């Protein structure tokens, strides 16, 4: 029993962390009314996916993927997910920048940040 528990939980704790963080971010993204909090939820959701990518790149005892003097035969971490995440972070920043600009504009036009009030104001106008 302990072996199964270790197998499922302890040896894969990184996936649990990523999943829990992702659910928190997704919940905030959907349920939060304040538009800025929605964006914060979006950032948490994206960061959780980055954590998921970086965690499965880990190799037991591997160092950072920068060549040591003994070159190829040292044990390195898998470099590919790190590259993908560098790209994904830039995407996250760009989407957040556009999202914040839209919020600034919405606040200027309607003077309200909360989604429920926004719906009334939009319908009212």
């Amino acid at each position, binding site marked *: 029993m302990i072996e199964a528990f270790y*197998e499922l939980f302890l*040896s894969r704790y990184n996936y649990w962390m990523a999943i829990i963080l992702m*659910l928190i971010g997704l919940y905030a993204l959907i349920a939060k009314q304040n538009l800025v909090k929605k964006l914060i939820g979006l950032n948490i959701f994206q960061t959780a996916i980055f954590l998921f990518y970086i965690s499965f790149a880990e190799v037991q005892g591997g160092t950072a*993927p920068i060549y040591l003097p003994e070159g*190829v035969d040292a044990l390195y971490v*898998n470099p590919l997910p790190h590259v993908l995440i*560098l790209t994904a972070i830039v995407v996250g920043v760009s989407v957040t*920048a*556009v999202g914040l600009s839209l919020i600034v504009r919405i606040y200027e036009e309607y003077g309200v940040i909360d989604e429920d009030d926004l719906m009334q104001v939009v319908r009212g106008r």
Partner: protein
Amino acid sequence: MKVKALLAVLFIGIILFWTVEDMPAFGDPEAPATQYLGILYIESALPDIGIENIVTAILASYRGFDTLGEVVVIFTAGISVTLLLRRGGRL
């Protein structure tokens, strides 16, 4: 609204929890991800490109087209913020 969100999130959560046991263990050297491309990149980066940082080698040379797309994404975000926020001005 909140309950609906909670249900959606739990549904997504169940799918994710369902997959964890089939994932390779944390740091497992035999994981297919590291066995196949990971080692291939580590072995071929030094002879092919000859720079120390493998991540930069992949980022700029092996998957250079991705990074070009990335710079275009940043550029698009810059132009988008300018279009949305800037008043007056030439752009």
